[in-house]
């Protein structure tokens, strides 16, 4: 049967899958051993079955909390995309704006996202708006910086061609700069997508009302470790899926671009 499988999916791939299963199995066995023998220095490590049971019992709550987290992450990300791509185009192509805004951007950029949380808290309290604003701040910079850089790197020949064809400002923005910049803008958005989920969870932990971050923190504070680990597992699966969708979407959306087709379009 193994040889049959190997013929279908390829020897090397089968080997990898088997190795993956093996490592998962070893880790699971080690975990169960530690849980049953309480090796982990007096800490009660819940067994995998206990975690799975708790996860199943709490499934409605877990998914509801995950929903809140994702909703705020998506909202903050969407705002960042809508605001930062035009701003990036502006800074990248119009010198006056670059001179005025870029120093301010450079001033804010090194601020680690958690550093703005107390400030946002003072203004917006622990509302949804506060958390969305924090996600917005964190997700903005990758998109903005990538957009600025990529529109600046548009080939001069393309710019001159657009000018010879007498494209007006809007036409050249939408027909020349934006399509040209899209791969790098997408790379920025990809970074921002994973940042958004990360920051959303973070913001919840500090400005708690609801969401998976709060759930994790509560289960730690009340020593319900199985609950916490079930939450972590759900979060990991969700983050993994988002990552995959991200990569797939990027491939589908940019199939036409020269950087993907390998053909030079100039």
């Amino acid at each position: 049967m193994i040889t049959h499988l190997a013929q279908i999916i390829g020897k090397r791939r089968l080997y990898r899958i088997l190795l993956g299963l093996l490592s998962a199995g070893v880790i699971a066995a080690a975990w169960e051993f530690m849980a049953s023998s309480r090796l982990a220095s007096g800490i009660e490590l819940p067994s995998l079955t206990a975690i799975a049971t708790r996860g199943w019992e709490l499934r409605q709550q877990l998914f509801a909390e995950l929903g809140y987290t994702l909703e705020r992450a998506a909202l903050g990300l969407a705002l960042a995309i809508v605001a930062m791509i035009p701003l990036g185009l502006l800074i990248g192509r119009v010198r006056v704006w670059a001179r005025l805004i870029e120093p301010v951007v450079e001033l804010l950029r090194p601020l680690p996202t958690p550093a703005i949380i107390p400030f946002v808290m003072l203004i917006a309290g622990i509302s949804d708006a506060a958390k969305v604003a924090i996600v917005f701040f964190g997700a903005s910079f990758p998109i903005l910086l990538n957009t600025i850089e990529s529109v600046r790197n548009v080939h001069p020949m393309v710019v001159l061609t657009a000018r010879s064809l007498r494209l007006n400002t809007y036409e050249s923005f939408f027909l020349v700069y934006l399509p040209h910049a899209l791969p790098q803008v997408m790379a920025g958005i990809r970074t921002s997508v994973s940042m958004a989920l990360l920051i959303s969870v973070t913001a919840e932990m500090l400005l708690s009302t609801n969401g998976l971050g709060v759930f994790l923190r509560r289960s730690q504070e009340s020593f319900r470790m199985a609950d916490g680990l079930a939450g972590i597992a759900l979060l990991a699966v969700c983050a993994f899926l988002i990552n995959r969708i991200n990569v797939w979407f990027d491939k589908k959306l940019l199939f036409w671009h020269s950087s993907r087709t390998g053909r030079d379009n100039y």
Partner: protein
Amino acid sequence: MPRRIDWEWLSRFAGIAFLALAWELSSRLNLLPRELFPPISEVFGALASALLHGGLIADEGLTLARTLVGTLAAGLLGVALAVLTSTFRTADGLLAPVIEFLRPLPPAAMIPIATFFVGVGKALFLLTVVFAAVWPIYVSTANALRSTENVIIDTGRVYGCGRWALLFQIRLPSAGPEILTGLRVGTGMALLATLLAEMLAGQRGLGYRLFDSAFSLHTAEMFGVMIVAGLTGILVNIVVMRLGAFFLGWRILMSQHSETTQAA
């Protein structure tokens, strides 16, 4: 003859100066709530007094040390993992699923779980910071190691390099710039995680101080600490870049050399 005013140079500061002035005035004229937006002059006053006799320097030193130590540990771990997975196919098969599962997890989510295991202490900070910083370093190093130019590897083989010589003398050095990029992203994540852990579980450090000053409504000090946090971000970046220039200087020299030979 008087020197001409360099408008280009001045205009760089125009945006910032305008913002600062607008902030100062609108706060002084009570257009903005003054307890939330203290005038910027007061912010610098509070910053100075916190630095001089508020112990801010000690907090900053602690945060900086946690960030740099964490980045260093994450760098060693990340590069070691990348060497392992890109050299041995079996190691890659074993580790890849674990890494794919752990990598996208937010470091903040790890804090409660890590607290279960190690309590609140040095180990918690180190664990959180390393967890946050290791993935960018691992990913860029592994990618670079997998895509070493075949010509260089073949040249090494011709000169009789074995597996380890190839790794240490050819593949790792040629991955240098990508490792540096990973480290730069990694330090950013490390600083983020340090502040976060300090906010959630710390009694000292910049992150704790930020929350403390915000909760006690010392907004001027809070803005001051925010400025320090931003400067810390710049500082750790400079440290990594300097280290990179020190270790990768030969590469920059080489690329300059090749440019000049191409021009000739």
